[in-house]
């Protein structure tokens, strides 16, 4: 009897595992615009028939040799201090898409600004920021980057087959760092996570 029970236990365990296997090989069903894109490592974000919230994330440690302040009208070295991160984006699909950006960091005082070369004013990021923000304040910058209530923000439209270079400028504000870094005598490193999110080219299709 014991042997029969043992054998039954083995058979049942195998049967149960087969049932688990049945669920494990099911196909996933996702949102329209499923992610069939290829995400290259490094600095390229290639998407095809993409997911509503298909995203590309690039993680890096950024070393800032000096601090600055975008709202300071006397700050003339702003463009020399900022880091410009370039990500090449390619819409290999058949539908126009919007590409939004997001930046996360654990460090205090990091600010960012997303743009592309067509927006540049006199080749200066600071002048570009001045040209697109209604006022040079943190809240205006935030609203530009991520939109009102954090839903949306600045985006770049990519038609099918188009390639663009999305640029994300990052810097640290001198109000938040030690004096030595502020004066450019030391450097400070920040873990920075830059994400690009591709979504349908319609309002309301993307929420952060």
């Amino acid at each position: 009897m014991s042997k029969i029970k043992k054998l039954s236990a083995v058979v049942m365990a195998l049967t149960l595992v087969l049932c688990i296997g049945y669920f494990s090989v099911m196909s996933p069903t996702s949102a329209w615009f499923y992610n069939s894109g290829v995400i290259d490592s490094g600095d390229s974000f290639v998407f095809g028939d993409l997911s509503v919230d298909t995203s590309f994330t690039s993680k890096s440690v950024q070393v800032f040799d000096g601090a600055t302040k975008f709202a300071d009208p006397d700050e003339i070295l702003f463009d020399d201090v900022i880091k410009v991160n370039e990500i090449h984006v390619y819409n290999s699909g058949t539908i126009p898409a919007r590409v939004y950006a997001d930046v996360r960091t654990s460090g205090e005082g990091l600010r960012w600004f997303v743009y592309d070369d067509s927006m540049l004013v006199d080749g200066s990021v600071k002048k570009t920021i001045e040209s697109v923000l209604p006022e040079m304040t943190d809240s205006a910058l935030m609203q530009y980057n991520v939109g009102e209530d954090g839903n949306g923000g600045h985006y770049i439209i990519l038609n099918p087959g188009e390639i663009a270079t999305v640029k994300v400028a990052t810097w640290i504000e001198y109000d938040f760092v030690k004096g030595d870094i502020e004066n450019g005598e030391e450097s400070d490193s920040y873990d920075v996570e830059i994400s690009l999110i591709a979504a349908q080219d319609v309002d309301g299709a993307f929420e952060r």
Partner: protein
Amino acid sequence: MFNILAIVTVIAVVFVGFNLLSGAKGYAVTSPSMKDTLNVGDVVFVKTVDFDSLQVGDIVTVASSDKGKFFTHRVVEINKTDRTITTRGDANGVDDPMPTEAERIVGKVWYSVPLLGFITIGFSFVSGSVGLLILAGIAVVLVTVNCILTKSKKRRGESDE
């Protein structure tokens, strides 16, 4: 342990057998576009449906042109002339950007079961061979635990005597 294993196995076999015999295909929900109706981790069971019997409000699963990917959304418009449907995720603010041809409709959602889809989602992170190893591991663990519990029960029985 033996009894629990027996009950769970019977339920699993009946459930899987029922779906296989009924011809329903299961899909694991991996995105929140149908949130509140279908949540991430649900499994939807889909049965083939005639295009002409589809109605606005039905939830359908649709395949990509290469039949390699799927999405499950609600029908919001049916164009009988073009034989296309317009779909929308309940949680999305807008209709899906392009109509779907009848040929790409896999079927209509029959019913859904919560949480089971996490098995699919979990296994999607590992390769096929690793998945097989995990399944084999589960079988070994089940048999081993059953053996240990049976032996300890037997010992307790002997010591009581």
